[in-house]
């Protein structure tokens, strides 16, 4: 249906040894063939891969050594002709290839446009399409796993289960309404309704809990390191980066101090704020005041708050405690190799039951405890990703939140003693919202349920 051929870099920039430029659309093969110095791609079989060199049409020079996959419609991801040009990793080669295909007539794809086409061409359903979007953005192995599982329909499966439970409840209310005189149908009671809605509300809440983790897995845990000057923030950053595999490698043309660092700590990906940011936090409170610095810190998912074991607690430290109040943070008392001057009791009092870790970064002590504390904070200590279904997509999370809200509204109406058919408005809304996640809003389902569940008629 689409007439334009689109192209984009379909691998994360800077990551991996190979980068891929993907083309989709009726002219995909023709465009690639025009650049390719190898076989005639117009003649090759579908789903084959070919080695050769790309020739720059302007300079007629060999531009890149590539492998080209040719996949013809309809058995492709978008159900259109697809060509994938595999180039060397790094940013230069792949950008040059992209420029060449764009000059030859392809249009730069909008974000997610391949998926959109796959969706519009009926290749995948909505929740799958969105899972693919996440797949594209997946930054860590774990996030990759989540997106894959979702595509397998595990989320769909769960949602369908909840919907069925709600549907049976709704049908029960409906039958009481439409057949008020039938005595062989038990009257749905407020108690029963409360039970049923509560059950589903809990299950949705659980999904939302893991959704939080799903978001973290995909985007990394935004992590700020704060503390007064010379408490060991830079050492902490370096230690975390060195101890753990850095996910993002340096990209030519950029310097370490302006990119975000991704590190995976026991499966929890951390996105450490840029070093410039850390530098600013040294006197962030002093500069912009507690209130405003709090706002900045609130954007972080996790704060690593470093204190110096060798110094007594200062006013600045106390201000920082004030700034992180109620947020997710870990207190790190560093420099345990030096004499203890810090009052642990005082710190404990200020730290609101948050974990307190003692380290000596110079002597590489306490690092394991710190890593464990980080993992514990977000996985409640028990990481069992294999059995979890993550909801890792903003739209899904939004719909789940709305569904939860609708069920809360229903419980509120129940408490108020509203009639069940009024309560049911919100239950039905929940059912619809869950249906939107999996793209299923067929309304005949209720009527069918009604007549299969109950013996009705005159």
């Amino acid at each position, binding site marked *: *249906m689409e007439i334009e051929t689109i192209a984009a870099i379909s691998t994360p920039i800077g990551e991996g040894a190979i980068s891929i430029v993907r083309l989709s659309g009726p002219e995909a093969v023709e465009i690639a063939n025009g650049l390719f110095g190898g076989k005639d791609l117009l003649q090759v079989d579908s789903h084959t891969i070919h080695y050769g060199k790309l020739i720059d049409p302007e300079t007629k020079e060999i531009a890149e050594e590539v492998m080209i996959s040719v996949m013809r419609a309809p058995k492709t991801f978008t159900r259109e002709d697809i060509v994938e040009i595999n180039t060397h990793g790094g940013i230069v080669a792949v950008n040059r290839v992209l420029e060449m295909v764009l000059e030859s007539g392809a249009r730069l794809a909008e974000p997610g446009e391949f998926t959109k086409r796959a*969706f*519009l*061409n*009926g290749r995948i*359903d*909505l929740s799958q399409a969105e899972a693919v979007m996440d797949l594209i953005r997946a930054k860590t192995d774990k996030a990759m796993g989540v997106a894959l599982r979702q595509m397998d329909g595990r989320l769909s499966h769960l949602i369908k289960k909840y919907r069925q439970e709600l549907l049976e409840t*709704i*049908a029960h209310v*409906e039958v*009481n*309404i*439409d*057949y*008020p*005189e*039938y*005595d*062989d149908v038990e009257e749905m009671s407020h108690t029963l309704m409360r039970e049923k809605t509560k059950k589903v509300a809990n299950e949705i809440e659980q999904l939302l809990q893991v959704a939080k983790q799903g978001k973290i897995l995909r985007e990394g845990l935004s992590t700020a390191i704060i503390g007064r000057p010379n408490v060991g923030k830079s050492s902490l950053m370096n230690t975390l980066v060195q101890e753990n595999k850095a996910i993002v490698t340096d990209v030519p043309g950029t310097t370490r101090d302006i990119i975000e660092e991704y590190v995976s700590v026991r499966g929890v990906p951390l996105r450490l704020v840029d070093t410039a940011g850390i530098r600013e936090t040294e006197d962030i409170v002093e500069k912009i005041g507690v209130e405003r610095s709090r706002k900045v810190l609130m954007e972080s998912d996790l704060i690593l708050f470093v204190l110096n074991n060798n110094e007594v607690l200062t006013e600045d430290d106390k201000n920082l405690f004030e700034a992180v109040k109620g947020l997710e943070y870990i207190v790190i008392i560093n420099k345990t190799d030096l004499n203890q001057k810090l009052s642990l009791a005082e710190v404990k009092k200020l730290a609101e039951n948050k974990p307190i870790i003692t380290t000596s970064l110079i002597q590489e002590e306490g690092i394991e405890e710190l890593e464990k504390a980080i993992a514990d904070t977000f996985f409640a200590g028990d990481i069992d990703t294999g059995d979890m279904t993550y909801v890792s997509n903003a739209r899904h999370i939004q719909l789940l939140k709305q569904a939860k809200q609708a069920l809360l509204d229903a419980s509120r*109406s129940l408490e*108020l*003693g*509203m*009639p*069940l*058919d*009024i309560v049911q*408005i*919100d239950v*039905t*809304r929940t059912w619809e919202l869950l249906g939107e996640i999996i*793209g299923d*809003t*067929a*309304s*005949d389902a*209720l*009527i069918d349920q*009604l*007549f299969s569940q109950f*013996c*009705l*008629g*005159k």
Partner: protein
Amino acid sequence: MLYDGGHYDVIVVGTGHAGCEAGLAAARMGAKTLMLTLNLDMIAFMPCNPSLGGPAKGIVVREVDALGGVMGKVIDNAHIQMRMLNTRKGPAVQALRAQADKPVYVQEMKQIIEQEENITLRQAMVNELIVEDGVCKGVVTETRAAYYADAVIVTTGTFMRGKVLMGDLEYESGPNNQRVSVKLSEHLEELGFQLTRFKTGTPPRVNGRTIDYSQTEIQPGDDKAQGFSFETEKYNTEQMPCWLTHTNANTHQIINDNLTQSAMYSGAKRGTGPRYCPSIEDKIVRFHDKPRHQVFLEPEGRKTEEYYVQGLSTSLPESLQHHIVRSVRGLENAEIMRPGYAIEYDALVPTQLWPTLETKKIPGLFTAGQINGTSGYEEAAAQGIMAGINAVQKIRGKEPFILDRSQAYIGVLIDDLVTKGTREPYRLLTSRAEYRLLLRHDNADLRLTELGFELGLINEERHEKFLEKKRLVEEEKDRLYKMIVKPTKEVQEMLTKVKGSPLKDAVRAYDLLKRPEVKYEHLESVIESNESLPQVVKEQVEIQIKYEGYIKKTYEQVGRMQKMEEKQIPENIDYDQISGIATEAKEKLKQVRPLSVGQASRISGVNPSDISILLVYIEHGKVAKLAN
């Protein structure tokens, strides 16, 4: 040789519940109308249960009334009992149900039609339509009369190729042994219409003199003056009760032992019956673990001893029906007056209709009622009035009159029919309405009277009264909003009495009424009362205030769909030109030809991805290009 029967604006074929409303609506809008019936003594006859209304259906009766129809007025004059159902539930699902006095109902309706100035009422069998250049121009009767008209409304109910089934007995017949209509059915097929075969059934009737009522439970009507029509002022409160009994193991044994003798279980291929109206055979087979089923004994009128045995609908042979009836407690000596039977008939696949109920294939031809695959007197009446209105609108070159799903159950009914079609006789259920809270029986007048007035079906006097009611409701709401209720002893006592928590601070009377436990009458007892206010106004004020939050929420829901409803699909769209839409969806779209994207999204087999593609095409203006 045909003779010229004359020219009319509108011809209505059939005078059942659809035909009566269609003919009266057309006539009252000023159209010269001819109504043809197979049997003048069977106008608005109820061939099955003697009741009208109930959940959803009762609301439809009020909607028909608010548009200026007659069903509500007639039943208000022709019932033996009325009950408000679901009174312990919310306002949206409460509904009135009447037990009809069948013979009186027929007489009342017949006289109304006879007295209508613009109507010619005549007994005749219609065999064919007059179709010229693909447009319907009139009808031809069995007696060789050719009647001409600008619009024809066919409301033939279950008469088309009707076949009565009882055990191995089967014979061609309309309901209640009336003449069957065969030629019209064949003619519609020749014209290219797709017909389907549906089935329904009715239970035996017994002589009330032979019922032992002491063995049954009494089911009285409400001890209260109430009626369907917003215009009714004189209420009939002299009520007759119904009676409740049950089937038992013995009944089930007889049926199980003889299942193969049931016309519907004999293995022969039969039309599709409705799930909500199963025969007793169906109930016992499908829900075999139920030890008993309810049986209601309903009088068919004041001047007859016939009782309708609700719950025993069957197509078993007459000989077995005696045994089955007599196995039921209280009916041990009951005498059957008419046996139950199943009836098969031709119905039009309703997706061949526009939402105006005009057929897509033949302009000028409208169909309404059971011919469109529905069941129920109320569903028929609703379609009747809409077809009547639209026929006249069309003749006059005016805009089609279409109610949407948030306006009326009538809108839900017709949208379902023409958009989704139906695989079984269609019955309205409250669960079919997604905006149930808006479609209440108490506000049918507020929703539709103005529209009826604009169409010319509601007279000046009624309209004035309606506006007055509306004004009183608004004024009273305003008064309660401005009134502050203080936590006085009197107020606290009232709240204790209704098991509510006491007031902490002064509140608006309006907000106090929001509490579920506080009824208007309670509030009224502690504030300066507005005594002259009619009860219906108080009731309306209470509902609007109490459920305000939920009503608002429902309107938001309507709003979400509105965008899709407003996105029109060009009539000349060529779905074949749109690649990407799944083949099944394409076929459905081509058949239904939805007028809006909202309507398209309700077609089964059309997926969200098909709708996305459709939207992309419409938005890019590609549809227009492709269609040219």
